């Protein structure tokens, strides 16, 4: 069953078209990947679904659980169960990891959950709970805490923008385990990635280029296309559509 539908989505920023007629129907409870080269519009699509500032003024419809959510702000969308993990998560002066994680749960004060999710990411709670979510954390630590806060929140639909970037190899498995955990909790995961290894975590993939979705299918097919055609492609040009409906660059 489809849980999130993006219909005829266009996004313009400063007179430039960023998203061009995007149509995707995301299946419930499945890990679906969005792949594509730098600048393809993957993050922009995620930000539009989350409703971030600058990404609210879209044409087309975003339908979640049968409801058009275009007019809802970020809080309202997250209260429906949608959340986003940032590629470069924000830093907060003075805000403790404890309070940051706690904010993601409904409970007033629940240290057990915070400890548990840190441990799932391989982070010692005694070392991290009292540290600030500020620039003293390494990029990898900050990314793992981002993932931990998503585990604490247990969203129904989660957009992960390159959750593997900046993560060292030894921690990568923890990120994959976290994705599994979210799926076990019946979450729909939309995984934006560049990496072929991470793509294997998904069941289905959409290939974006130049603001459009140009292909979709089981990851084996799209993955091959991405590897063969997109990775070597240096230009950001939209590939030419062939008569059989497929693309070449």
């Amino acid at each position, binding site marked *: 069953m489809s849980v999130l539908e993006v219909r005829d989505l266009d996004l313009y920023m400063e007179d430039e078209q960023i998203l061009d007629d995007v149509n995707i129907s995301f299946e419930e409870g499945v890990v679906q990947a969005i792949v594509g080269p730098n600048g393809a519009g993957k993050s922009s699509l995620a930000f539009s679904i989350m409703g971030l500032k600058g990404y609210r003024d879209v044409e087309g419809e975003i339908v979640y659980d049968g409801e058009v959510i275009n007019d809802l*702000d970020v*809080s309202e969308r997250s209260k429906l169960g949608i959340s986003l993990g940032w590629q470069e998560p924000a830093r907060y002066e003075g805000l403790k990891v404890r*309070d940051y994680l706690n*904010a993601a749960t409904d409970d007033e004060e629940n240290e057990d959950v915070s400890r548990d999710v840190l441990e799932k990411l391989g982070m010692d709670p005694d070392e991290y709970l009292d540290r*600030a979510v500020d620039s003293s954390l390494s990029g990898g630590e900050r990314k793992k805490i981002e993932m931990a806060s998503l585990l604490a929140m247990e969203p129904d639909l989660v957009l992960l923008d390159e959750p593997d970037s900046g993560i060292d190899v030894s921690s990568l498995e923890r990120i994959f385990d976290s994705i599994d955990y979210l799926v076990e909790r019946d979450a729909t995961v939309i995984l934006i990635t560049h990496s072929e290894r991470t793509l294997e975590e998904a069941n289905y993939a959409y290939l974006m280029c130049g603001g459009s979705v140009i292909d979709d299918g089981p990851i084996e097919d799209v993955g091959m296309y991405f590897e063969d055609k997109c990775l070597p492609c240096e230009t950001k040009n939209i590939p030419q559509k062939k008569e059989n409906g497929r693309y070449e660059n």
Partner: protein
Amino acid sequence: MKIEDLYEAAEIEDAVSDPDVAHLIINKDKIVGENEIAGLSVNAVEIEDGVDVEVVVEEDAVIEKPVHMCFGMTQEEGLQRIILDMDIRAGSEIGILAHCVFPKAVDVRHEMDAEIRVGEDAEYSYLEKHIHSPKGGLEVVPKAEIMLERRARYKNDFELVEGRVGELDIDYECVCEEDSILEMTAKVDGKEDDDISIREAGDLVGEGARGVLTTRVAARDDTDAEVINELSAEAAYTRGHVDCKEIIQDRGEARAVPIVDVHHPLAHVTHEAAIGSVDRKQLEALMARGLSEEEGVDLIIQGLLS
């Protein structure tokens, strides 16, 4: 309201009942509690509308436990003038935790005039925490002149994040001799029609003296905030940094005036000042975890002022 309520508001009940902890408790213009310990002498005298306090830390005395001071008022109205003379003699070490507690204030003025000398190689840290009534009927006017002798270290933290600020007018000035270290921090949470004025000034006169002035202010609702951070460097190898961050929300207004005055080619002073509303990305990231915009702003400000 009883004096015990002040202790409770300041969470110092345990400290004032510990004989090893020196303390001085002042309610409006009355001395209501006093405990001296070896190495430290406190001479407090009641004056008109206030108390005159002289503190001497003996040479080389190391005061292990933080000394508690409480300047408060159980009444709704009144004037409190504190004249404070601190003589932290050479080689000594002391930390003071001061609570300024005005839980009932409707129309209260608290003045502090402090003169502080920190002797050679001495270390002094002073944390002043304000607990105000939610009514905003307070005027707080702390002035301090501080002198740091060679290799002295002084750390001053001013915190006004509980209750309404009311009107605040801080003016601290510190002269820093050779190789001394000054750290001055103020954190203030302004709401409604609070009026905040902060001036912190460091004068690095001795070679190798170092100073850091840090200010964090939230200006919400109709708060008006002005922060003047002055750091002047007169001698070689002096190092200084000014760091001021003000978050404005609603109709708040804020000014930051960093004044960096360098008179020696071998001195180095830097400053950063940032005024603006809550960072959008920080806020949206919290909203994406289920917080409302208001809850997100509160959490960000709470972190900044912690």
